[in-house]
């Protein structure tokens, strides 16, 4: 009996699992609720109106997202007869889970006791995991058997090919500068935040994340004026809520990665011993930095319209990709000069 309890406890306290549950699920939910509220409020502010308000005037409408979430959770889930049922149901769930999976391998502290998986290639694994979830968006579009969904899925595929290389190149430039794939070493090496040393790579990564998570002006796969809701046109209720959340979760995962690589991770704090100072405080600092990044991401909504698909792709390949390459070159130069 004791063996089984030990086994369960060891599964729960297996670092990747609790990090996924604590930071990946709970943290992401709280941050996403805050970020969507912030996005709606900030957009409303620019547009000279109030935004969500009457649901709770004292909290400035913060529970609005909770209400939307509960409403979606309890709405009927329609599964049309024409869809491919298994894929239709599974795709959003898998996409959502996979979109926060990178968090399971990212070390959020320098204390080795709380590293999820002690390894030297954590950055590579995290980057590799970010590339999995978009495939399930295409699957969702395909399984819906709806013309708008398929067009949206195809657009998603186009956009993936454009942003993935840029994101990976620009984030890898940090490891080129430090000459290590270990995120802990990259964070520790940043006496000066890497964003100041290599702003080009940061800008490229910023744009790539905007494209990856359908932020304006790259909100093309779900562009409502041609393809109603893109791959999610047929989704209703909880499944649509998951789909909507997946994009933000993905943005959260990317933001944490960017906070570690470009914004100095848990600096200026030095993690100590014990769970509080060794794990909770540094991970909170990282999440806070990621949240600030996400707030900046959400400001583009009120300023820009959306690009046409070919213009976005052209911009990505002609402008942002050379930028990422330049950033990578700069990183190599820095490594040669020993700046970091």
């Amino acid at each position, binding site marked *: 009996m004791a063996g089984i309890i030990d086994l369960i406890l060891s599964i729960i306290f297996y670092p990747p699992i609790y990090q996924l549950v604590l930071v990946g699920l709970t943290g992401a939910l709280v941050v996403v609720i805050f970020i969507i509220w912030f996005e709606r409020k900030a*957009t409303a502010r*620019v*547009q*000279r*109106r109030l935004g969500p308000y009457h649901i709770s005037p004292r909290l400035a409408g913060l529970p609005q997202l909770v209400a939307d979430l509960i409403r979606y959770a309890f709405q009927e889930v329609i599964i049309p007869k024409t869809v491919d049922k298994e894929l239709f149901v599974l795709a959003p769930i898998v996409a959502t889970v996979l979109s926060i999976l990178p968090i399971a391998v990212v070390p959020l502290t320098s204390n080795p006791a709380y590293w999820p998986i002690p390894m030297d290639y954590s950055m590579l694994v995290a980057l590799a995991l970010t590339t999995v979830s978009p495939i399930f968006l295409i699957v969702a579009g395909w399984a819906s058997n709806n*013309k*708008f969904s398929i*067009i949206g899925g195809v657009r998603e595929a186009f956009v993936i090919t454009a942003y993935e290389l840029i994101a990976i190149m620009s984030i890898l430039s940090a490891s080129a500068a430090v000459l290590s794939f270990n995120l802990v070493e990259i964070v520790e090496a940043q006496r000066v935040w890497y964003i100041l040393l290599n702003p080009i790579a940061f800008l490229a990564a910023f744009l790539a994340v905007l494209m990856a998570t359908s932020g*304006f*002006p790259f*909100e*093309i796969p779900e*562009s*409502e*004026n*041609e393809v*109603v809701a893109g791959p999610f046109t047929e989704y209703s209720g909880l499944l649509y809520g998951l789909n909507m959340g997946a994009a933000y979760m993905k943005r959260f995962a990317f933001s944490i990665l960017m906070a570690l690589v470009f914004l100095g991770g848990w600096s200026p704090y030095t993690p100590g011993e014990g769970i509080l100072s060794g794990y909770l405080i540094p991970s909170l600092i990282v999440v806070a930095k990621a949240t600030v990044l996400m707030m900046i991401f959400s400001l583009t*909504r*009120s*300023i*820009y*319209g*959306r*690009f*046409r*698909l*070919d*213009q976005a792709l052209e911009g990505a390949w002609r402008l942002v990709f050379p930028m990422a390459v330049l950033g990578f070159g700069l990183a190599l130069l820095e490594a040669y000069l020993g700046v970091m």
Partner: protein
Amino acid sequence: MSVWVYGEQKSELGLEGTITRKLEEDLYEVFIGPQHPGSGHMRIIVRIDGDIIVEADPDMGYVHRTMEKLSEGREWIKNVPLFERMAIHDACNVTVSYVMALERILGIEPPPRAKYLRTLLCEINRIAAHLYGFGIFGVFIGHSTMYMWSFADREVMVELAEKLTGARLTHSYPIPGGARRDMPQDFPQAARKAVRYFRRRLDEYRKIFLDNPVTRKRLEGVGIIPKKIAAELGVVGPVARASGIKYDARLAEPYDAYDEVEFEVPVYEEGDALARAWVKFEEIKQSLRIIEQAVDWLEKHPREAPIHERFWAKAPPLWKKVFEAEGRVKLLPLMANLKLPPGRAMARSETARGEIVYYVESDGKTTPYRVRIVSPSARNAIVFKYIAPGYKVMDLPTIYGSIDYFPPEADR
């Protein structure tokens, strides 16, 4: 000299037309609308090859409310509120030419004060309608701030119209022989304030929308209508003027006070979506000028009943007493069963979206024999069929928004 000769010209213009209702196997047919964020109250059947539109077939009539038929059963004056329902945010412009047609049959000319009042409301409506168009355009290219801003500022003009007429949208302001009521005492002040406010705001619109790099990229070179083809398709309003056609019903056949006020008609040569947006933008500026002039004129000249003396002479004494005491004019009771002499008349006026043409035929009864309305959107609908093919799917909302198509107006 027959169709054949013209046939050569047809191919030269490249207006072959598309064969509809026959689907090739490798084309993809998408039904956009009527429940779709990128179609108003209409359906556009689009066939695409990859990302390129091969055919676009507008399926209209979702808002066809049979105005031409209903008008044959209703009294002359009742048709004014009926017709303004086709474009309620542009109510004065669409009804003023119907009223002008009636005046032509009656052989009367409204007094100058009524003319200026109508002109004033027409220009207020034009600005409101252009801002409405800008807002919808903004949504169509994903720019929600443009929608919110222009709808917020549209309220300024709507309130001005409300001050003048008493209704937000459906004013029913022009009546045969004049206008329904005079402006209130404090109107000129409010109008000047609104004009000052708009002059300031327009600059910000230019910054966030017309000069926005993303917007420019979306609009430039999209939906190009060359001048010759624009004339051939018979497009109207800002669409024609963006293609270099210097045509405006206010210039061609000046009605109301338009031959007395100073204004320019902006004409652009490019013919693309951006030029259409610029035409509307510049027209708002010109409308502001006209509002100022009209308000100045109305303030300078003494108040008189803004209705033709032929009708005013028959007004009940109470009406005249009210006018002397408060300067208000109520709708005359004799308007209810107005009888027109037999005759036919045509009149045109320039609405925000272009020229609207009324053909009115009377056989001497209290109701019209036939009213034919050709609204600007109905004439612009042809753009979908002939201009949209060849552009990308994501350009369709741009074209839709730039021609400012308003289905209730097109379907009548």
